[in-house]
């Protein structure tokens, strides 16, 4: 039970921000406060994006919906996608990582605390600018991937798209700053003894995510500036029929960002799964090296699959074939993760907390999103199903059934660390079952709608009985899901106020964040246990089974 003192060089001492009351939240450079700011901001936008989703479903509940005009509907689905991706899923994971990564690697703060604050506030500015367009009477309405030439001034002459571009450039800058910071922190400030192979898998996944952000968000911002140039300065990067302009160029630039973006939103959830499943199975992760390694493989391959968003564009056969192969290939490392999580549960001692329920549902739902993903990698199937409701179903199974359920597993798991209080398991169970029912009811039927020929992004549809029935089921499911989300928010608020006291390590978990108080002090740790494996607290509590002594034990036996 030897406690090693912390090496002073590993821990930059954060500037203290005492006093100031609530104003301190504006000036803070504490990674934990900034993490909370990110997460609370994302929850706010989750509400906005959720209301937009419900408006979409109300409009589509029956044929000939008259709740929204087509122009309003177009703006709402554009903002729903943009909000959920850029203002909810990405920043909520960045916020969680901001809070947890320094704690998990035994650091006092991130490498660049002021850059961290800057990144957050620029992100907030971007979110505000996106919605400021409301005051011009025209929200962006060219879809979340704003295909040229529809997004060009000739077809979207009102300023909504300009606000969309500037807002995304700003959130992009904020996200890039956060990624640089996380990378530098992980590379430079790991506790003594924490080698790459002893790093928590959540930290691994955030490191890969940060690298993807650096290489994906930068081309997006370049493309956005080009589009803004087309719109405001009469340039012609993407204006077809003007010399040199190409509508397809925009798609290449956008999806070169857009597909890695899917993994920016998925890898953090994979990281959460790789922490939650072992702890509640009371076993180490099965195949640590393969879980980390498959993350690297996904990170690299994510830059070689973007054309599968463009199979219907009419590119050459070799081009389609190459990207089809790469897109199928990425299913392999993703499958490896699924198999490792489910095998971690095998012969474990499963503690069925709300967190574990969400993790288990995530595995199954993510498999559904994964196999439909393989269908889209197969070019001819894509030629039938892309741009139909099948793709809407697929992407929500990945991003909601996968990422969001993974995030919920993480929230139930780390809420006690962040607030010092346990979340209500009773509300958690209600939240879980309503979310599973609501989610699958909303999106499963959309697979069928797509197969029955319903295109996506339509504000209404012909009054066929099949379309009407399936859309109504989907809408009812969306409201059940909405109730689940309200219960979740209520659980957050009521548990924050009246939850049971958590103590330092309520789950008997193994990574360093559980070695400090809940919530941690501003400087994070008084002392760190020695890091001799990926489970330092396990080694501390079970010296006879310590992971780092495994090879010598096996040699004796």
């Amino acid at each position, binding site marked *: 039970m030897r406690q090693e003192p912390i090496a002073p060089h590993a821990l930059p001492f954060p500037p203290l921000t005492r006093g100031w009351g609530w104003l301190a939240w504006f000036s803070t450079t504490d990674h934990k406060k900034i993490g909370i700011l990110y997460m609370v901001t994302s929850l706010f936008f989750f509400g906005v994006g959720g209301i937009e989703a419900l408006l979409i479903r109300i409009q589509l509940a029956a044929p000939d919906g008259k709740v929204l005009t087509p122009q309003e509907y177009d703006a709402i689905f554009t903002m729903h996608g943009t909000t959920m991706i850029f203002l909810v899923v990405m920043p909520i994971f960045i916020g969680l990582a901001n809070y947890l990564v320094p704690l998990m690697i035994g650091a006092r703060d991130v490498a660049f605390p002021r850059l961290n604050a800057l990144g957050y506030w620029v992100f907030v500015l971007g979110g505000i600018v996106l919605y400021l367009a409301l005051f011009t009477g025209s929200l962006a309405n060219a879809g979340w991937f704003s*295909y040229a030439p529809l997004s060009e001034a000739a077809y979207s002459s009102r300023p909504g798209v300009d606000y969309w571009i500037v807002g995304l450039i700003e959130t992009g800058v904020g996200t890039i700053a956060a990624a640089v910071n996380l990378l530098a922190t992980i590379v430079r400030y790991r506790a003594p003894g924490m080698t790459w192979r002893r790093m928590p898998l959540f930290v691994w996944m955030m490191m890969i995510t940060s690298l993807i952000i650096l290489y994906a968000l930068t081309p997006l911002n370049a493309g956005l500036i080009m589009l803004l140039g087309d719109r405001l300065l009469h340039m012609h990067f993407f204006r077809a029929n003007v010399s040199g302009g190409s509508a397809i160029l925009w798609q290449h630039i956008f999806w070169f960002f857009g597909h890695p973006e899917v993994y920016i939103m998925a890898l953090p959830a994979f990281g959460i799964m790789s922490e939650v499943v072992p702890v509640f199975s009371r076993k180490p992760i099965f195949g640590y090296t393969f879980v980390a390694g498959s993350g690297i493989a996904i990170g690299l391959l994510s830059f070689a699959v973007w054309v599968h968003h463009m199979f219907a564009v009419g590119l050459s056969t070799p081009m389609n*074939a190459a990207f*089809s192969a790469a897109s199928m290939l990425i299913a392999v490392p993703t499958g490896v993760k699924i198999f490792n999580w*489910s095998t971690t*549960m095998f012969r*474990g001692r499963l503690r069925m907390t709300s967190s574990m329920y969400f993790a288990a549902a995530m595995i199954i739902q993510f498999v559904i999103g994964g196999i439909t993903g393989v269908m889209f990698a197969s070019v001819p199937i894509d030629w039938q199903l892309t741009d139909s409701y099948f793709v809407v179903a697929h992407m929500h199974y990945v991003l909601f059934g996968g990422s969001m359920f993974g995030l919920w597993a993480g929230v139930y798991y780390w809420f006690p660390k962040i607030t010092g209080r346990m979340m209500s398991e009773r509300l958690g169970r209600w939240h879980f079952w309503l979310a599973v029912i609501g989610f699958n009811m909303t999106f499963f039927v959309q697979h069928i709608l797509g197969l029955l020929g319903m295109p996506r992004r339509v504000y209404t549809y012909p009054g066929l009985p099949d379309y009407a029935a399936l859309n109504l089921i989907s809408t009812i499911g969306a409201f059940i899901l909405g109730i689940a989300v309200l219960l979740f928010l209520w659980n957050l608020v009521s548990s924050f106020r009246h939850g049971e006291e958590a103590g330092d390590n309520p789950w008997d978990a193994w990574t360093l964040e559980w070695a400090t108080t809940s919530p941690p002090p501003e400087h994070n740790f008084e002392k760190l246990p020695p890091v001799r494996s990926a489970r330092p607290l396990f080694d501390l509590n079970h010296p006879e089974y310590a992971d780092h002594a495994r090879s010598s034990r096996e040699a004796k036996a």
Partner: protein
Amino acid sequence: MHNLYSTVASVLSPASPYAADIGRLFWITFWISMVILVAVSAFVIFNLIRYRDRGQEGLPPQTHGNMVVEVTWTAIPLAILVVLFVLTMQTMAAVSPSSHPKADPVNLDVIAHQWWWEFRYPGSDVVTANELHIPVGTPIHIELTSADVIHDFWVPELGRKMDAVPGHPNTMLIQADKPGVYLGACAEYCGAGHAWMRIRVIAQTESDYQNWLKAQAQPHPAPKTSLQAVGMGLFNGLTCSSCHVVKGSGQPEGHVVGPDLTHLADRQTLAAGVVPNTPAELKKWLADPHSIKPGVYMPNLHLTSQQLDALVAYLEEQP
């Protein structure tokens, strides 16, 4: 006529060799996927039930991994995907225009517009809007372009979908095995009218198709009643003819802005599928296009009821 949409246009009820090829590939992939999904779900649920913590003492076995198992579950999916990739390449070739000889003279030009379809039948100067006539049993080569933004031509029962990209002409194949009406729609979001940019393919026997084409090649019928004559005058005198063509109206045929209205009475729907093509619906449409298809570029000309009746009589004139 009032039931414009009686059946869905399902990917799973193919009516052409190409849609059938893709459908077969879909089902193969689907069943492989189901095996994987059922296996993983069963394993997870088995674990949840069998290994639930029942308060036992001590720790479960602390297994860290197994190289053989890892290699196996990397290799098996890889092998499945190699098979799937080979099938993908075969199907791609089977449904591509390059592997099917061109059947003269059927070689269609499809031009997508916000928010309607222009179909040009080469070998004749016949032009239709939103309704495409094809002969059955023969591969139809489509030359696909767009006049403005990106659209996408999709008739699920007859073949793949393909984007209509400005400045990037595409070719694709469709075919209908049996006579009938096949429904489709624009699949790429293209602005306010995207939901009402629907396609209707009318597949006919070779002789029916040739007869139809001959009839369409005739000019629009000359006015037979005085009301129709007034209508033709209005068509030419108001601004209608600056956007629309009616062959035989006496106006020069210029730049295409709106649908060709020659032989309008032959068509089943108005406004790319919103309402059935009846004189009553046409009158409503002319009186206020935006109430029927919001966002449409056709202006409301604020016509009087008499003007509307005359225009409807002329445009809906039967041959």
